[in-house]
């Protein structure tokens, strides 16, 4: 088991991809013939040590869980929602944002006790349900797959749970953060068997990424 054993990496298309590619570049891992407009989904790196797959973020944990991809990079929000049975050895410290409860401006103190359950529109039904039921708040979850900010505007729900980075999208839609649920950033995930069977190569990748990640990232926690 040499550290030159090939590792397959699942990458998320979308908001995180650019910043992840830059990070990989800094770690001296560059993809061959990758073009932004390309419809290709599989790429190699120039040394032939890595193979990359471009996937929808929500599918990254699946590919890694089944071992078709040895490792993957994806936002913590996706991991919390899907609860895949995979290792999460490194937070890359990039793609920072917040998963938050938001509502129409000025409703932070609104009294919803008269309602039997508060309606919450979200792409994250599992996280949202757990967050509120743990606090003893009865909620009705309305699952939406996108444009979640529209829901309170049209009266579909009183609140939303969504990813917030600059807060501009919320503000432009007349919404504000009511409470923060957790911080979200990009994480490296590893298939359980690959972590064991391809240990040198995986550990090498983790080290290279740790070295180039912003100071907020860490794989060995502070004592």
């Amino acid at each position, binding site marked *: 088991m040499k550290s030159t054993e090939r590792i397959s990496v699942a990458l998320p298309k979308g908001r995180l991809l650019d910043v992840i590619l830059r990070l990989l570049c800094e770690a001296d891992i560059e993809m061959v013939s990758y073009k932004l407009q390309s419809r290709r989904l599989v790429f190699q790196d120039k040394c032939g040590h890595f193979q990359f797959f471009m996937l929808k973020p929500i599918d990254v944990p699946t590919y890694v869980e089944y*071992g078709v991809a040895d490792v993957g990079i994806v936002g913590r929000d996706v991991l919390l929602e899907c609860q895949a049975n995979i290792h*999460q050895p490194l*937070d890359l410290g990039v793609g920072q944002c917040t998963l938050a409860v938001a509502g129409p401006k000025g409703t932070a103190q609104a009294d919803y006790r008269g309602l039997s359950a508060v309606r919450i529109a979200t792409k994250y039904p599992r996280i949202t349900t757990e967050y509120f039921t743990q606090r003893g708040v009865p909620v009705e979850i309305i699952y939406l797959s996108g444009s979640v900010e529209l829901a309170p505007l049209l009266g579909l729900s009183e609140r939303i749970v969504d990813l917030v980075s600059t807060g501009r999208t919320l503000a432009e839609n007349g919404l504000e953060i009511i409470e923060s649920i957790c911080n979200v950033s990009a994480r490296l995930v590893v298939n359980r068997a690959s972590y064991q069977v391809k*240990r040198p190569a995986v550990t090498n990748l983790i080290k290279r990424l740790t070295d180039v990640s912003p100071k907020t990232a860490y794989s060995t*926690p502070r*004592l």
Partner: protein
Amino acid sequence: MKTLTQIPLGTQVLFGESARQRRRLEQLIYSVFHRWEYQEVIPPMLDYYDVFSKGMGVESENSMYRFVDREGNLLALRPEFTSLVAKTVATRLQDWPKPLRLCYSGDVLRYETPRGGRQREFVQLGIENIGGERVACDAEVIQVAMESLQRVGIKKFQFNLGEMGFFAGLVDQICLSDQDLITIKKLIDLKDFIGLQDEMERFQLSTQQRKALYSLLHLTGNAQTIDSARRLVSNEKSLLALDNLKALYRELQRRKLAKHVTIDLSEVRGLDYYTGIIFKIYVPDLGFEIGSGGRYDNLLKNFGCDLPSVGFTFFLERLMSVALK
């Protein structure tokens, strides 16, 4: 009303080549078990719920198929074999010569989400070695597992070896509630360093304790890992666990099996009844472990007979996807 052609989630039918392959694997592996003088035990499909919940721990409660019989007793379909074998030995076979060598093969049921290679009904095939000397029997069951894999054509495999006592010694000092312990185990199991850090903030830990717990995540490798681990702890239980691990590793070296073994002290999850060495079995190109085992010295006590035990099980469906190719 469901149509009659619909199948319940997590079940499957084997026929043609897959049925033949299942029986062929069972026969080949059984031939290895029998060569080592393991005799078959065929326990019932169900038993009182308490028989399983005692051993498997609070986490497994929701994954059992439970039902109430006509007298109002709570029963369960077997989610594993070890508890049944333990109960049989404790109540009927306690006078047999030690160590008792028993094997089993059959379907078990767990009400889990079918994902990542798990079905709700799957086959376990394994052995239990009961009442014998610790290091020799630990090494024996590992050797039987390795020879079984070789017998079905799997030449490359990795056994990740850990010791529950190491982790238990560490957490004894921290006084965790059951719920907290489950959370910590889960975080270590996922190798979620950050999550562990956040969780640990809540407890008053000394620097040494903190360092030891976080290091768990890195304590994987060859035999030197045991020495590295020794430098991190001072409590007796953890040190004893490391001695056990070292003794077993030496024995495996003596049997020329150590090349397949990796020490992994971050292996903490698994059934609650494990008290000593634990191991998970991996093969290349399969994203899930194909078997697991360990020592469980406190299980038979529950059934009225105190005997140390060790064993392992293969997950046959996963084996089928890589064996005999």
